[in-house]
């Protein structure tokens, strides 16, 4: 079998490759969005932790200046 006949899929190239292409896109989206979800949560929690730390620092400065 040549590459040309392989890609031609007996005349059904549009349907077969369309289906496999869409399936690949869905699978890739699943992996990427799942990994991104965890990273987004971590980033949010890091920023939250920093934001909680910041007022405490300014408070101590405030008391120190008094």
């Amino acid at each position: 079998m040549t590459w040309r006949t392989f890609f031609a899929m007996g005349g059904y190239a549009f349907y077969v490759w369309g289906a496999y292409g869409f399936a690949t896109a869905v699978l890739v989206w699943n992996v990427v969005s799942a990994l991104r979800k965890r990273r987004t949560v971590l980033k949010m929690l890091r920023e939250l932790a920093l934001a909680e730390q910041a007022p405490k620092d300014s408070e101590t400065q405030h008391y120190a200046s008094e």
Partner: protein
Amino acid sequence: MYKYASPKNFYALAGQLVPWLGIITLLLFVIGLYLGLYVAPPDYQQGDSYRIMFIHVPAAWMSMFVYVMMAGAGLVGLVWNIKLADMLATASAPIGASLTLMALVTGSLWGKPTWGTYWVWDARLTSELLLFFLYLGFIALQAAIDDPRRSARAGAVLALVGVVDIPIIHFSVVWWNTLHQPASIGSLNRLISPSIYPTMLHPLLVMSIAFFLFYFTVVLIRMRGEILARERHTGWVMQIVRSSTEAMEAGR
């Protein structure tokens, strides 16, 4: 076994499992695609268009399996108030929705050359489309409720009501006169002496296992994210956040 029911231990275990599951899944996809697109001969009636089956059928099976997992986990969370079960339900929804869409789109692309139409409102196609909307409804409902416990409960009730669609999808080709063909591999008996050739059966089985493991890999990654978000006030998550801040600062 019970010690993995705590979010902390589950988070660690899932983190160790994910890379291995991912590698096995990828290998199975490569083998399945090779067998399905290259080794398997063209069908005597449908030519090469039948190769869509190797993704359409596993996607359709998983669309139902993931829904049952989601509803089952929702029920466990509802009755025993187990956080990990709630997270399993929430993490399953987007995966199930996307696999349902995959089943619909690949089926449509198979329908055109086989039946002459991309879509018909027959019982199988309509009930599968309803499944897609059930997933979207679950995701929208959970997104609309901020309180995690109320959100989990509302989602579980919706998922459990919608579970009646699963037997309707499965038996639709038997109960109604559908354009969609009946199952080629419906029972264990048919699996031992199936109505399709081994060269066509093997890629289908390999792809099915690949889709199955794919769901478990992705759901574990998603659950890890859910665990971090919902357990953010616990000491061990704060420790993870601290060390990731340090890692970022060291990288700068």
